[in-house]
């Protein structure tokens, strides 16, 4: 009896360790990519994200501790388009992991195939922090989520071809859910089509285009340059002239300048989720839009 129990325990342990060894270890730069990877990979993957959802994805500190996860990863997913240029190339180079270097099967650039907006015609830093490949905040259009998911599924199928059918069926389920939710979000946003708003940073162009909003101006005079008094005066004038109701911002910007404008004009400040984990209740990619759409519709009413 005893031997049987021991054999049972050992075989259980064996299965457990085998199952653990069988999961594909994925490191993503942002939480949105983590969420989509989990939705596509299901129980075949274990995913961690370097950035949190309430942190500015341009300015993540390349802490050495991130290298530990990267050195063991089977796959790396990046937003790309120079969004993470200040920190992820350095971490990748230090990881000593050939499986996830640019060009390797385990390197996934989620931006492949995205219809990019605001691609600059000249690279001039006098315009502030411009992105030479185009605006990189593309995950804020739910339909781009499908492109991201396709890229992630391609990556998983390269790294783990044996589970291709699982990834494909999860991908189809993801597409379906996006389409369903898209109808719901569109219907909610429909009454506010053409609404003029002010944003803190130029990161809403994909969201704005998809949901028919009109971002008139930004609190930042130029991307990455903190709000200046003259910019605030300009924004206040615009809000008054266009009867703008809302200033949208992100969890990682201070509200001090928006407070001033809000006090002067009565426009409401709204901090939206730019990523999964931006707020406690935003637990997956769909929640980002649920949260933002609900907040916006409640304020624009």
């Amino acid at each position, binding site marked *: 009896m005893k031997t049987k129990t021991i054999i049972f325990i050992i075989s259980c342990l064996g299965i457990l360790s085998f199952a653990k060894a069988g999961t594909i270890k994925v490191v993503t730069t942002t939480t949105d990519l983590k969420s989509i990877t989990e939705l596509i990979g299901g129980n075949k993957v274990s995913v961690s994200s370097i950035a*949190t959802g*309430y942190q500015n994805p341009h300015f993540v*500190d390349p*802490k050495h501790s991130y290298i530990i996860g990267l050195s063991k990863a089977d796959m790396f997913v990046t937003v790309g388009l120079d969004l993470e240029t200040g*920190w992820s190339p350095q971490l990748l180079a230090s990881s000593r992991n*050939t499986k996830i270097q640019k060009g390797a099967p385990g390197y996934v650039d989620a931006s492949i195939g995205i219809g990019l907006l605001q691609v600059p015609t000249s690279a001039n830093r006098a315009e502030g922090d411009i992105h030479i490949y185009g605006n990189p905040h593309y995950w804020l259009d739910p339909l781009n989520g499908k492109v991201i998911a396709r890229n992630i599924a391609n990556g998983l199928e390269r790294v783990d071809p044996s589970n291709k059918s699982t990834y494909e069926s999860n991908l189809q389920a993801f597409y379906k859910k996006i389409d369903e939710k898209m109808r719901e979000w569109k219907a909610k946003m429909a009454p506010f089509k053409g609404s003029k708003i002010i944003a803190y940073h130029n990161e809403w162009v994909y969201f704005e285009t998809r949901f028919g909003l009109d971002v008139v101006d930004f609190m930042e005079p130029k991307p990455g340059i903190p709000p200046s008094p003259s910019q605030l005066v300009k924004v206040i004038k615009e809000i008054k002239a266009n009867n703008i109701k809302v200033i949208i911002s992100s969890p*990682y910007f201070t509200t001090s300048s928006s407070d001033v404008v809000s006090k002067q004009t009565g426009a409401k400040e709204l901090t939206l989720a730019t990523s999964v984990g931006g707020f406690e209740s935003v637990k997956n990619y769909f929640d980002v839009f649920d949260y933002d759409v609900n907040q916006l519709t409640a304020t624009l009413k």
Partner: protein
Amino acid sequence: MKWKRALYNFFFFSALFLSEITVAQVPADSTAADSILLKQIEQQMQSSNQPAQQPQQTRSTLSFNPDIGVIGDFQGSYISKGKRNFDAYLNETEVSLQATVDPYVRADFFLSFARNPVTHAYGVEVEEGYLTTLSLPAQLQLKLGKFREAVGRINPTHPHALPFIDLPNAYVNYFGEEGLNDEGLSLSWLVPNKKFYQEIIFQATSGQSESPTFFRGDNNRFIYLGHFKNFFTLSDNSTLELGLTGITGPNDSSRTTSIAAADLTYKWKPVQMNTYKSLAWQSEFYYGHANLLDNFSVNSLGLYSFLQYQLAKRWFLTARYDYAQKPYNKKIVEQAYSLTAGWYATEFSKIELEGKTTDDTIDKRFYQAWLRWIFVIGAHGAHQY
């Protein structure tokens, strides 16, 4: 008209096929590919009345040029002793060229056009030029060339990235204004520790570069360095780094000098507001043992400690204390206090103002001040955390 179209298709696809072959065979010679492309464009233009759906062959603007960046460092300075108290100079122009060589290695070059503080003459030197392997097994990484060596935190950092304008006295006493920057190889191993980050670096260099401590003799003696880096994540917002370094090599009296160093860095940076608020406390300790004559050696000690506080998105304040015994005579002791205010306009330019007071056991107290403006054009490499 059908035959015309068929003929056109035949030419088009054979041209395409040829271009593929040409590109595959001689990728370096672009003229052949260009002339084929020209033919294709001509064909396309001739048939522009037919809205046929040909694959559009767009010219890519990508190139294999390395990432190029230029960093300017303009300074004004004041010193309370001597005859000339005020000065202004372009302290350094650093040109960086960085790219991957092939699937196995990457290369980094930093050329420095700098002013010699003594002769005031401008000269060019290779500040760093090294290759780094990308695909060694067993979590190893090899660096080969001329590089800033792995002594603690200040030495591997380019001076323009430091939060103060002068270098700590103890550091300059041991390694000079240029730092320990030598030619040879560096092998680093990422310790497979899942709990926290550990890295072990071993470096062997020729002693080619000048430094106050080490000297290149006409024998087969090299400088050896070992560094053990430990990095702990205390919380989401705070980290602690502890490094231990040992260096040994020949000195200018053909005997041996050894240095033991330790570095300790605490950083607090709230993840959510990391661009607005932060605090760093960094210290390094150096202990030198210089064997200068038979039966005569000097043990000396030096340290610096600084506290950097970020007041707002663009404002940084750094206070530093220096203690340094001269490596050749421990009775000469320097102590200095300095305060630096930095205004970081963007990621690409910053202005800093530093004031410093120095006491030592032979001269009377003197004061120094600097103003520097750092500006970057082109590619801007990421800074170390």
